């Protein structure tokens, strides 16, 4: 199979999946017991807002018109208005998306780098004490519910030691101070940095065990491969062999990286909630509790889209680094 066909096939699949998620969401919310407008009114929403809501969603049109309007709106990133703030959803959540990124991207990256190192060290020392005992603390961290891990961090480092603030992303006072500056200015403050440490560490710890364990398994597997033995017998020095082992065994870890990143964007819900970090997960929970359906729908779609697109990226990436992939498929 040629690269072009491989590419085409994957793009088709990805677009199809995205469409499927959109459609699923559309019908899920139409399936909801009770009428959205009624619920809103019941919740004490202003009738004007409800009318506006109905208008923007075209709730009075026939279903198929609503459906196409809905798809069209999503493509234009105009998924309606949030009932919480009366702002367009996109304006309301775009900063949350960025806040999740700034937390997830460096933390997951560090977790993967550390994990690869731990996995390689334990994998190459197969049969030794290290290999037997290192997985236990890793699994232990993996077994702690992430919200509890976050709480433990707060109790120890914010409560008892008092080194870091307990929650939110920045001191409101500091935020006010920079309110007239460009939006990115607050991310370069000491207050932000101090607030950043605990959530960041929690995410790193939480996402460390997966890459470590996979890397370890992968290293063990690669070590048993014929070609590694062959390299040894051909007189390749140890350093060169290690390089080759690392290259081969990091393949599954590298492929997991984007998917972990994408999942973290949704999975950080709990950690963001504990730390009151204004990210997507936090926004989602707030929207769910406030029955802000336009926001729920959009945020969920963005999270799902990250996973789907990450899968696509992996496939393409894999086909580039591993010459076997696109041909065998």
């Amino acid at each position, binding site marked *: 199979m040629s690269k072009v066909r491989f590419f085409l096939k994957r793009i088709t699949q990805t677009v199809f999946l995205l469409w499927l998620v959109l459609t699923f969401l559309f019908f899920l919310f139409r399936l909801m017991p009770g009428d959205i407008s009624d619920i809103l009114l019941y919740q004490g929403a202003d009738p004007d807002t409800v009318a506006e809501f109905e208008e923007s969603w075209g709730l009075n049109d026939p279903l198929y018109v609503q459906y196409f309007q809905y798809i069209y709106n999503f493509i234009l990133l105009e998924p309606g208005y949030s009932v919480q703030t009366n702002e367009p959803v996109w304006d309301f959540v775009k900063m949350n998306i960025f806040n999740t990124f700034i937390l997830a991207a460096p933390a997951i990256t560090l977790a993967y780098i550390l994990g690869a190192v731990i996995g390689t060290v334990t994998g190459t020392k197969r*049969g030794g004490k290290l290999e037997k005992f290192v997985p236990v603390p890793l699994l232990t961290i993996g077994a702690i519910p992430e919200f509890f891990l976050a709480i433990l961090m707060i109790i120890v480092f914010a409560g008892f030691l008092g080194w870091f603030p307990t929650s939110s992303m920045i001191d409101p006072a500091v935020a006010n101070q920079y309110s007239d500056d460009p939006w990115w200015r607050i991310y370069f403050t000491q207050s932000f940095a101090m607030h950043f440490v605990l959530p960041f560490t929690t995410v790193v710890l939480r996402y460390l065990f997966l890459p470590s364990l996979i890397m370890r398994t992968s290293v063990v597997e690669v070590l048993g*491969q*014929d*070609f590694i*033995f*062959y*390299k*040894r*017998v*051909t*007189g*390749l*020095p*140890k350093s*060169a062999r290690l390089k*080759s082992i690392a*290259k*081969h065994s990091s393949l599954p870890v590298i492929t997991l990286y984007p998917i972990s990143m994408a999942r973290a964007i949704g999975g950080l819900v709990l950690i963001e909630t504990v730390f009151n970090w204004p990210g997507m997960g936090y926004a989602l929970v707030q929207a769910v509790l406030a029955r802000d359906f336009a926001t729920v729908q959009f945020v969920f779609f963005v999270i799902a889209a990250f996973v789907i697109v990450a899968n696509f990226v992996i496939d393409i990436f894999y086909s580039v*680094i*591993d*010459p*076997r992939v696109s*041909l*065998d498929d």
Partner: protein
Amino acid sequence: MSDDPLLEVENLTVQYKTKEGMLTAVSDASFAVSEGEYFGVVGESGCGKSTLLLSILNALDSNGQVTNGVIRYKGEEIQDLSEQELNQRIRWKEIAYIPQGSMNSLDPLERISTQAVQLAGLHSDLNEEEALTKFEEMFEIVGIDPERIHDYPHQFSGGMKQRAIIALALFLEPSLIIADEPTTALDVIMQDQIFKHIDDIVDRVGTSIMLITHDIAVVFESCDRMAVMHGGQIAEVGPVTRIDNEPHHPYSTLLQEAFPDIREPNRDLSVIEGKPPRQIGETDYCTFVDRCPWATEECREAPPPLERAEADRSDHFVSCFRKDDVREENEQGTDDRKAPNQKSGSLANDE
């Protein structure tokens, strides 16, 4: 062919650390391969031939070690050399290897030419261009289109991969090539082509070959001298014509009779009951005793020494207490072996 031994193995014992104790895979093995010689090692699965090969390549698993004896290459003891010394002086420059699992021996993420250039960089003075030119020649020798040196391994069929591996073994003109069942997974026609290339190498370059195989026919056809292994012990060593025509060890005799011959499609084939034993601790008896129709109590009491098969021949050795009786019977064509000691043989050994 000169008579200087290129490779000498003397009283070699190799053991693996296992849960049950020290597992002896090779026991007191001795033989020598001369320069330019085509030497075969024959035995069925579990006979220790792979361990023998790994210890010569100095590539035993971490739980395996040479516990006794020496391996001499060009007169120098190599069994205790450091990894670095081996890489710098011995591996590939002197001793190259053709693996059994050639299907997976090439790095799937690298072009074959890249792997060759890397070897040339490590073990020779060739620059990249010279290396590529030379590797193209090697491809020609083994019958693959030289343009395909830049392919990835997965673009090759099984037979082609095997030939590419042979090309790599030849590449830096080593003095000794160790080939481990180079044709096991291949069809008979491909097997014949592969052996044709190996024959060519011996004829043209004068490289010594040590061929490890279960196929006695291949050894009889191709090799100059051979060793027969059973249960970690060398049963018999000598010129192939001697072992073919005047085998002294019962195992050599039976193995040969078990092999079908296309020229005599209806000859009765012999059956050797059981399988080689798994040996924990020192081997202090003949490992063939449970499968041997000639065995006596004596064979259980001590390992038979590897001695001259006949007093006046210095090139044929056999390790069997009853070698003279076996020889006599074979010569007379009488067949009064007792029934194989089946019970202890087959039941004791299969786990």
